[in-house]
């Protein structure tokens, strides 16, 4: 290996570039196979590793942990930015219970399961804490790939839950790591107090960071559009870092900051969202590649039995039971929906990143826990992971997924605008399907401004008939949105 520059850097970039390109190209395989795309990145990482065909020797847990934390920060910020406030408002209570009590319950049950399989209590509880949080990206990637769209309330519950439950898993893992290292362990009240403190500090500072970002983005006029994402990237780093330094949950804070910023209107908003979307994807790929490199397949064989048993226990017993208990006080979830939310508690990168922490802290048996966690996440990607589209259809929880529009029209504005441009796919079940534009009654501030039919852009005229399959762009004032959605259905991209 050359050690002189720029050859060393070039070699590193060649390696990185090749892995990135291969990962992106193989991501399409996930669409056909219903396997979460993250798993494919992970497998590529393993193949590139010291025991695969790549032969890259890599065993830097500290670097992996740091990278994983940075990646999660970017992913959570992006997740927050793309979560509409309406979803949060709608699902915050059930999701909040799932993300706190639910996480504790899952951790405890998996801990008991791990103890039954022969792990000592400290390690068993640590394992439970590590795998206790769910991953929305995993669920939605699987659904999107298979062209199924979830019923809204079920989707928002899963989405909001997974947005806000990582902090709890992090807090529990930190506490259980400490517990495993301290003779006699830590007292429960200290743990409880720590949890509340973390959540409160993280939540409050997240809102503050978000408001600060909102203010800057709406008031500040920067010389170039490209500087805005640089600003928000900085804000995301601060939103994670400052609360963490002040004993708050940085993961909660960065998600909350993302929500507050993402729900504001400011110049270059859609461009900004796209940059963060790209950053989140890059983070996903890099994180999973590195985690794949970090794993030694030969070591996994020793924990296969335990891993599979615990993964199935988590999927079939722990998660469904905890979800059923957590959602019991909430009206409006029927048995199928509760069962579904219980079933699709997919695990993502967070457990693998968290599993590095005890290894770094020097917990005896930490590497064994890491291997088991890795196994649980991989098995979880198949059961329940790969079953998600099938189960969604089986339980009748899908809503009609309109095909993506062939062209996208957006309003980029330097100042906040009154009113919005929304696109709709014309389904034959809609009231407007088959109607001529002149027959439609629009509120004063609303109109059809463009119709995309196949590859043709149609000018909307009075006698233009809306036909199934059209993509229609409508401008409307916020107060008329309910009526517009009554006759046009679901806005595209929502």
């Amino acid at each position, binding site marked *: 290996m050359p050690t002189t520059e720029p050859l060393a850097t070039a070699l590193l970039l060649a390696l990185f570039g090749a892995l990135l390109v291969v990962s992106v190209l193989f991501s399409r395989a996930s669409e056909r196979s219903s396997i979460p795309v993250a798993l494919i990145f992970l497998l590529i990482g393993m193949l590139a590793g010291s025991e695969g065909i790549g032969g890259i020797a890599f065993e830097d847990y500290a670097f992996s942990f740091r990278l994983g934390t940075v990646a999660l920060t970017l992913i959570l910020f992006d997740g927050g930015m793309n979560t509409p406030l309406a979803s949060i408002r709608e699902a915050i209570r059930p999701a909040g219970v799932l993300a706190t009590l639910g996480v504790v319950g899952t951790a405890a049950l998996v801990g008991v399961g791990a103890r039954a399989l022969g792990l000592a209590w400290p390690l068993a509880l640590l394992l439970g804490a590590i795998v206790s949080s769910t991953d929305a990206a995993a669920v939605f990637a699987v659904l999107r790939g298979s062209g199924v769209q979830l019923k*809204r309330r079920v989707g928002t519950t899963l989405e909001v839950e997974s947005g806000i439950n990582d902090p709890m898993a992090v807090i529990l893992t930190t506490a259980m790591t400490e517990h495993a290292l301290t003779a006699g362990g830590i007292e429960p009240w200290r743990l409880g107090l720590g949890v509340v403190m973390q959540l409160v500090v993280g939540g409050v500072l997240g809102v503050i960071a978000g408001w600060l970002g909102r203010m800057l983005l709406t008031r500040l006029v920067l010389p170039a559009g490209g500087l805005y994402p640089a600003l928000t990237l900085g804000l995301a780093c601060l939103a994670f870092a400052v609360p963490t330094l002040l004993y708050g949950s940085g993961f909660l804070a960065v998600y909350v900051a993302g929500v507050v910023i993402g729900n504001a209107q400011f110049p270059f908003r859609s461009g900004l969202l796209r940059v963060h979307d790209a950053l989140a994807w890059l983070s996903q790929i890099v994180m999973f590649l590195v985690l794949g490199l970090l794993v030694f397949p030969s070591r996994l064989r020793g924990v296969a039995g335990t891993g599979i048993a615990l993964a199935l226990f988590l999927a079939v017993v722990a998660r469904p039971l905890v979800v059923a208990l957590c959602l019991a006080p909430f009206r409006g979830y029927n048995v199928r929906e509760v069962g579904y939310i219980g079933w699709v508690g997919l695990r993502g990168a967070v457990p693998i990143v968290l599993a590095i922490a005890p290894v770094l802290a020097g917990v005896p048996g930490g590497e064994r826990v890491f291997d088991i966690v890795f196994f649980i996440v991989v098995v979880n990607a198949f059961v329940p992971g790969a079953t998600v589209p099938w189960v969604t259809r089986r339980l009748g929880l899908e809503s009609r997924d309109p095909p993506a529009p062939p062209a996208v029209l957006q309003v980029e504005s330097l100042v906040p605008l009154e009113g919005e441009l929304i696109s709709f796919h014309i389904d034959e079940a809609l009231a407007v399907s088959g109607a001529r534009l002149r027959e439609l009654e629009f509120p004063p501030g609303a109109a059809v401004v463009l119709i995309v039919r196949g590859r043709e852009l149609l000018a909307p005229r009075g006698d233009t008939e809306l036909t199934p399959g059209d993509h229609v762009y409508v401008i409307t004032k916020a107060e008329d949105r309910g009526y517009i959605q009554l006759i046009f259905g679901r806005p595209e991209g929502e």
Partner: protein
Amino acid sequence: MLLSELLSADRVKVPLGSRTKSDVLRELVELVTRSRNGQDADSILSSVRDREMVLSTGIGGGVAIPHGKTPAVDQLVLVAGVSPQPIDFDALDGKPVQLFFLLVGPESASGAHVKALSRISRLLRREQLRADLMAAKSPEEFLRIVRASEAA
């Protein structure tokens, strides 16, 4: 087009007996077929369900306006109902629904269909009217309230 002309006492049900979205849609469709003999309830119901699959017609504020186009009817039919228990309808604001207007019409009447929806949703923007309709004790009282609001 006046809603009070489309509605009649036998097309309004107060109170509705259903507790779920699926049941309440069926109960409302039964109002359509009851007042127009020999029609295909299943076909009407499935057209309404198809529309719900796209996006819930629960437009918020405790109101839902399910609708559908079906060859089973030859003109617009509007029915309404009030549920004493709020029913979870997957509404846009997440709140359960008490006040229902169900509209079905033939494929050929898209224009009139949309006009009727527009009329209903515009009327129901008034919060007081929504509250009054939800508090109606009988179909006759319900109709009186609709008529009075359209006359105003």
